[in-house]
């Protein structure tokens, strides 16, 4: 095909790479002002896949038609062969990094491997979760700094829950206030008290706050987690909690009294974890990856009975041609995991299609799934009062690992490889 009037893209020196097979609607498209098709492949309504080749002459691009057989199941051997062709040793670490790269949709090129290895070399030691964190950041064009990698890596491995962090902070603060009242300066006490109060305001609690209060807590929490919410905030600023935690760190480290050290240390542990969870959410919510599902991820502290638990939300969005994130009111999708004391976790998968809402609810056991099924008509009725039209609502028994995944990666075994070498 000849492309007139268009600059030729810069070809990488080593163009061999594996690429995950994308759904058709994610396929890149380009305009070809002048084309010369050597075979009758482009029939209306049919999808054609082609492989590009090095240009035979300037301003030319050759493309060869691909068939289903061009794709092969992805295996580790494919990764080792590619690493070898790039003159990189197929060490265990390199293969693990390559695997993480293709799972994140990053082309396995020499330059990309080098970039990631350089970023990981700044860590004291490298775990698989560090690689996953680094490749996630790179796929989203976010900085692969040691801090960002470590924050996300800890988030993947430890799965900290914001509700538990808030609860722990509140508990340790009360102990400190009771036991060391006279020894704590008033300014220090004021920062701790305000932090505990802001945390309390962010917790959803149906019994004391009602629906309106819970809706506000939810929106405030979204703002703290780095989700862009232009002007709704009423009272708390987007970064209020992070700023308070920063302030608290200064107060505790630079003005701490010896006798309260143990209590401070527990308090510090609780707020340091809260800081990490907020930072991880901010990174995830900043990420927008080409050719992959994009979503907001939010942990929502929820008070159920006497416990502070954590609900999780994943809201999918699309982007327009200028890169703005959009959620169509009539067509959207989200996952919501709501924990509870007696019936376990309820995993809602909600799909709104052309203004009709459908819901699948995954429960832990057949008994609670049946109970949920019998109760869902009540939820349907309540949602209709809110103006929602309902389609299919049903509950089922969920698999152990089914839930809201903040950084899901494509399963390696389900991927297909396409060799673009020539």
């Amino acid at each position, binding site marked *: 095909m000849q492309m007139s009037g268009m600059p030729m893209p810069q070809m990488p020196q080593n163009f061999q790479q594996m690429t995950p097979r994308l759904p058709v609607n994610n396929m890149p498209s380009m*305009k070809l002002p002048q084309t010369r098709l050597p075979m009758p492949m482009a029939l209306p309504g049919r999808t054609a896949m082609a492989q590009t080749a090095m240009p035979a002459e300037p301003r030319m691009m050759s493309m060869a038609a691909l068939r289903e057989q061009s794709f092969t199941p992805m295996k580790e051997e494919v990764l080792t062969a590619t690493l070898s062709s790039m003159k990189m040793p197929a060490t265990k670490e390199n293969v693990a990094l390559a695997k993480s790269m293709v799972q994140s949709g990053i082309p396995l090129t020499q330059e990309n491997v080098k970039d990631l290895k350089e970023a990981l070399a700044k860590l004291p030691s490298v775990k698989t979760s560090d690689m996953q964190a680094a490749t996630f950041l790179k796929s989203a064009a976010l900085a692969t700094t040691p801090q960002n990698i470590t924050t996300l890596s800890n988030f993947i491995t430890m799965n900290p829950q914001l509700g538990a962090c808030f609860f722990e902070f509140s508990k340790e603060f009360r102990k400190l206030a009771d036991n060391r009242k006279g020894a704590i300066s008033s300014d220090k006490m004021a920062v701790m008290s305000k932090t505990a109060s802001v945390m309390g305001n962010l917790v*959803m609690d*149906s*019994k004391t706050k009602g*629906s*309106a209060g*819970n*809706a*506000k807590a*939810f*929106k405030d929490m*979204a703002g703290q987690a780095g*989700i*862009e*919410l*232009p*002007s*709704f905030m009423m009272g708390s600023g987007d970064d209020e909690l992070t700023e308070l935690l920063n302030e608290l760190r200064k107060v505790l480290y630079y003005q701490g009294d010896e006798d309260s050290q143990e209590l401070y240390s527990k308090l510090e542990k609780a707020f340091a974890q809260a800081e990490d969870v907020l930072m991880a959410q901010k990174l995830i919510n900043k990420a927008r990856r080409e050719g992959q599902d994009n979503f907001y991820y939010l942990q*929502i502290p*929820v008070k*159920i009975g006497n416990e502070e638990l954590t*609900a999780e*939300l994943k*809201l999918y969005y699309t982007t*327009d*041609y200028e890169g*703005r*994130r*959009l*959620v*169509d*009111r*009539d067509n*959207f999708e*989200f996952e*919501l995991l*709501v924990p*509870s*004391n*007696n*019936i376990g976790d*309820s995993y*809602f998968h909600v799909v709104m299609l052309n203004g009709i809402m459908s819901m699948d609810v995954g429960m832990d056991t057949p008994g*609670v799934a049946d*109970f*949920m099924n*019998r*109760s869902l008509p*009540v*939820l349907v009725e*309540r*949602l209709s009062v*809110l103006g*929602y039209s309902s389609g299919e609502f049903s509950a089922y028994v969920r698999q152990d690992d089914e839930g809201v995944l903040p950084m899901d990666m494509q399963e390696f075994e389900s991927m297909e490889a396409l060799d673009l070498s020539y």
Partner: protein
Amino acid sequence: MGEDKKAFAVRQQPDGKMEVLAAATGKAAEKLLEAASDSGLEVLQDGNLAEEMERKAERSVSPEQVWDDLSVLVAEIEGFVEELDDLWGSGGSFNK
């Protein structure tokens, strides 16, 4: 496209409203469609254009509105689960 048909190239604003960038009829509409399509703009065409645009403007909402709606929806679901949890613990049900 017939002579009486119109085409509008539109762009969505951050607040969700649709901005009409160009409009044309007849053969000029065909050229507009082509140019707008090349630029990645949305093109609307048919006799019910006004209705279609109104529907799109209503449907495409700003992030603020989405989170307002979502906060109420999530609060409703969370409250429902909490009630269900209490009922299960006490052996009751919504249907009794």
